[in-house]
Structure formats: structure tokens, C-alpha cells
């Protein structure tokens, strides 16, 4: 089975200092599947999504590896072609609904402009498509909402619009970067269901970045657990929750809050577990440095 998106041995460093941010990450995502990228802050989970979309901060440099989208290596493509390919096939659902819509523009054009400008749709088709999508994400009165400014809408409403915008061009790949972290739990549940429903209906492949294992268990088929830019475990979702293989995964799961299990959850990550991962990473770094220094 060939994957739709395949990341092979991707390493990224801070430009100048050479500090490693991604450590030989390899992840395969099949068409129509949802893969969760899980980890604590600084684990590099967002970085992977950004590398795929080509929106890494200027201070970060990819130094080795391949990102194959449908067999084509994004990293060895002229920037202009890559931008067009990403624009036509991929989309982003960002984290913060407050900053993800441009406050100076009405909502409608923020969905339709890219259809018209980048994909060459007619204005009327784009408008009709946007209305249909807003309807699909359960927004009443789509026509009125399209004429509103973002600050006139609630957080949950804005996140729905971002989801509609992401699906507008029928992308084959969506990167969702902590899309529900800023929301109240009750709204989060609605939005998660909505994303799952849209993903299933449109058959979109999705990289779902999150720090919350609870969220992963609701939406992903596979997941990769990251620590300090290294994938410590990759598994099918159900296998993972039945029996996490890596000690760090087990510790992370035990630290995750669970109101049904007040004594078994919210356990601090033990020192020796951290020592184990740190040792693995140090060994990995040594090998990498030697490889870099060699021919």
C-alpha cells in the first residue's frame, strides 16, 4: 500500500546554532486517513505540519529527508511549483480561531478568494461553494455570515468557518494544528465531531497535531508520539490505547487527565522514563553528527 503523504528521515535545525528540532522523522499517511501527531510543547509536532505545508519560520532549516506528496518530493521542487501544488492540494486548519481569520476582511472573501485567485473558479461558483460549505458546517444563514467581519462572530463559529474554508477547494490533505485547543470543552466536542464528519465525507487525508491523547482517541486512525523532535512510537490508534509500547508513551498516557480514573491518571512522568528517552536521543544525535561529519 503506498502512502499519500510520506515523510522520510526529516531533520530540521535552528539556522545558525544547529540545534536539532526534528530528528529523522518518518511518518506515512494513507489517503483518507487521519494520523495524530502527539507530544508536549517543544516536541516538534507542529513543526512537522509546517514543514509539509512549507510555512516553517525563517529561523528553521530542513537539513535532510524527503517529504513525498503523492510520490513527488516537495523539498526538491522549485519553490514556485511547490507553492502552487500545496495551494491546489492541501489546506490548514489553524489553532487559534481568533488570529486565523484576517480581522480586516469580511468572512466571505476569506473563503472564496483563493478559489478564484489560485484555482481559477468563477466568482459565482466560489460564492455558491462557500455557501454550501457553511451550510455543511451547520452555520445558519450562511449568506449573512459571509458578509460579517470575524470579530462579530463567536469562537466556535469562527472555527467552523475555518473548517469550511479548509475544505472549500476539496484538498486531498489537511493539516489540523491543535484546532480545538482554544475552545471550551462543549464546543470542542462539536468541532471534533464536525471535523471527523467532514473528513469522512470528503475522504481527506489529515495530519492532526495535538497535545491531548483524549482528542487523538476520538479522531485518528494512527498516531505518532513525539519527544524532542523524535518519533518515539508509531502505532494504529486502537493498538496504542490497548498497549502503548514505548515507556514514554505509557507515561504520557498515565499523565493525561481522566475524570473517570482520579487515581490512575494525572501521574507525573517518572524521572527514569525521561532518562530513557533522553539517552535514546543522545545516541541518535551522536550517530547523526558522525554521519554529517563523514563523507
Amino acid at each position, binding site marked *: 500500500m503506498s502512502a499519500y503523504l510520506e515523510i522520510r528521515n526529516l531533520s530540521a535545525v535552528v539556522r545558525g546554532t544547529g540545534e536539532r528540532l526534528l530528528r529523522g522523522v518518518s511518518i506515512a499517511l494513507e489517503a483518507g486517513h487521519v494520523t495524530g501527531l502527539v507530544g*508536549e*510543547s517543544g516536541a516538534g509536532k507542529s513543526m512537522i505540519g509546517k514543514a509539509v505545508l512549507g510555512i516553517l519560520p525563517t529561523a528553521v532549516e530542513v537539513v535532510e529527508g524527503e517529504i513525498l506528496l503523492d510520490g513527488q518530493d516537495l523539498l526538491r521542487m522549485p519553490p514556485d511549483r511547490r507553492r502552487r501544488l500545496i495551494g491546489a492540494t492541501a489546506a490548514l486548519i489553524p489553532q487559534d480561531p481568533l488570529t486565523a481569520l484576517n480581522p480586516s476582511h469580511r468572512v466571505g472573501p476569506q473563503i472564496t478568494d483563493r478559489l478564484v485567485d489560485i484555482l481559477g473558479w468563477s466568482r459565482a461558483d466560489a460564492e455558491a461553494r462557500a455557501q454550501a460549505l457553511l451550510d455543511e458546517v451547520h452555520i445558519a444563514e450562511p449568506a449573512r455570515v459571509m458578509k460579517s467581519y470575524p470579530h462579530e462572530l463567536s*469562537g466556535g463559529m469562527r472555527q467552523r468557518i475555518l473548517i469550511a474554508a479548509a475544505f472549500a477547494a476539496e484538498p486531498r490533505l489537511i493539516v489540523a494544528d491543535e484546532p480545538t485547543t482554544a475552545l*471550551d*470543552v*462543549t*464546543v*470542542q*466536542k462539536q468541532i*471534533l*465531531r464536525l471535523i471527523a464528519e467532514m473528513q469522512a465525507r470528503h475522504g481527506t487525508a489529515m495530519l492532526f497535531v495535538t*497535545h*491531548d*491523547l*483524549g*482528542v*487523538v*482517541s*476520538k479522531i485518528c486512525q494512527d498516531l505518532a508520539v513525539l519527544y524532542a523532535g523524535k518519533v518515539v512510537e508509531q502505532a494504529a*490508534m*486502537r493498538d496504542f*490505547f490497548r498497549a502503548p509500547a514505548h515507556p514514554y508513551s505509557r*507515561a*504520557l*498516557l498515565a*499523565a*493525561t*487527565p*481522566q*475524570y*473517570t480514573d*482520579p487515581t490512575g*491518571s*494525572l*501521574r*507525573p*512522568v517518572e524521572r527514569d522514563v525521561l532518562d530513557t528517552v533522553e539517552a535514546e536521543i543522545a545516541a541518535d544525535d551522536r550517530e547523526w553528527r558522525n554521519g554529517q561529519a563523514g563523507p
Partner: protein
Amino acid sequence: MARPDRKGTPLYEVDNLHLSLPDMTAKPLIGAAPRIEILRGLSFTVPRGAVMGIVGGSGSGKSTLGRALLRLLEPTGGNIRFDGHDITHLPETRLRGLRHRVQMIFQDPMSSLNPRRRVGGIIAGPLRRHGFDRVEARVAEALDHVGLPRDFARRFPHELSGGQRQRVGIARAIALSPDFILADEIVSGLDVSSQAQVLNLLERLVGELGVTLAFISHDLSVIRRLCSHVIVMHRGEIVENAPTAQLFEAPQAAYTRALLDAIPLPDPDQPGW
């Protein structure tokens, strides 16, 4: 830190508390701004030694309630009694005598610690202002209590990790041996591993120091772990107030049930999803 054992007697008694704030965005050119009702008639007591969880969504008024308990905000109706004193409209000068007895731990440990002062100075500041003796010794004890090495007193906040900074915030609050501590969303900015450590610490401190704690959070899992009582807030009202076990076994209010149902547990087969 011996105090008379009056465990279980009310420390806070809140009766029909109302609080509204002017809405400056709707202020007309001349005249007063319209007021928004944030707290709409809350009544409850906080027993001495309790760990009171206050939970609700954004805009539920839970943070405003916390700030009213500390009298950082003045209520517009009802009254608040602290340890038998009516503090509802107590002027700032008279409140100052009570300030060292009620302390607060903030959500963002970075912005609540002055980046230009060392940890020792940050913890000692309130001690000096309230005229405590043995300041150095108390700072050292506070650091011991929160599990930070004593030589951290010489460090600056930016040299610490997020979890360590939150411990400094806790140390600053407990150094004064207060009767009451308000913790406002203090673990929501932390990773799950540091979150667990800070919660363990709080649990231990409550036991050791016998302090009464109000713990504001949007996360019911965290509340269940730490708190003895829970107040559930929704749109400025208390929809449920119950001992923790009872609330989780048999939630009464529809909103509480909706809140519980919406929590994604790390379990692929969680019912209702």
C-alpha cells in the same frame, strides 16, 4: 504554622453575590456606560480546610468570582463574609490588614513574576511588605515546601521551566501562611507531565499546611483529582454545588452532565462520542 483547629467551620460565606462591570465598548458620548451582569446572585460557603473547585466555560464568571472573593473587585450586591468579617465593601485601607491572609496564584507564571527580580526577592517581597520577621528563613522554607532547591532563590524567572515558575508562584503565596489561596487556572498552560507534578504538590501542601484553597479550572478531570467540593458555573450563576464524589457519581444539573460528556477521555470506545 499552628492555627486553632476549626476545620469545617465556614471561612467564606457568600450570600446573593452580584457583580456587574461597565461595558466601555458601548459607552455613549456623554453619560454612564451600560453595565454587564457577570455574577447573578451567588450563594455558597467555603468550609475551612476545603479544596473548592470552581469550574465553568469561558465567560461563565468563574475568574470574576475569584477576584471578588479576594476583593480585587467590589461586588455590586449581596455580601461576602471572610472569617466572620463582612468584607463586601471594606475600603482598601482596611482590606490591607487582611491581604496577607488571602493569597492568589496566577494562571501565567511568566507574566506574574517580575522578570527583573530574583526568585528570592519575589518571594520575600510580600513578606517584607506585611512586616513578617525571619524573612530569609521563611523564603527558604517556602522553597522547601514546593520542592525547589534553596539556591533557586538567586535565579531569575526566565532561567526556570514553566513548571518551576509555577512552583515559585505557589511558594510566594504560601510563604505568608495565608488562610486562603485562590488558584486561577494555574495548570492550564502547562504540559500534562508538569500539570501532574503541580497538582501533586498542591495536594500535599493543602494537607501539610491546612490552607483553604479555591481552585478555578475549566478542566473537570483536574478538579476531580484535587478538590473536595465543586461549584459549577454557567453564565454567571451556580448551576451545581456538591461534594466532588457526589458530583461525579450523580451530576444533577443538565449543564454539568453536558460538561462531563464533552470531555474527551483517552479511550477510543468512550460512550457518547
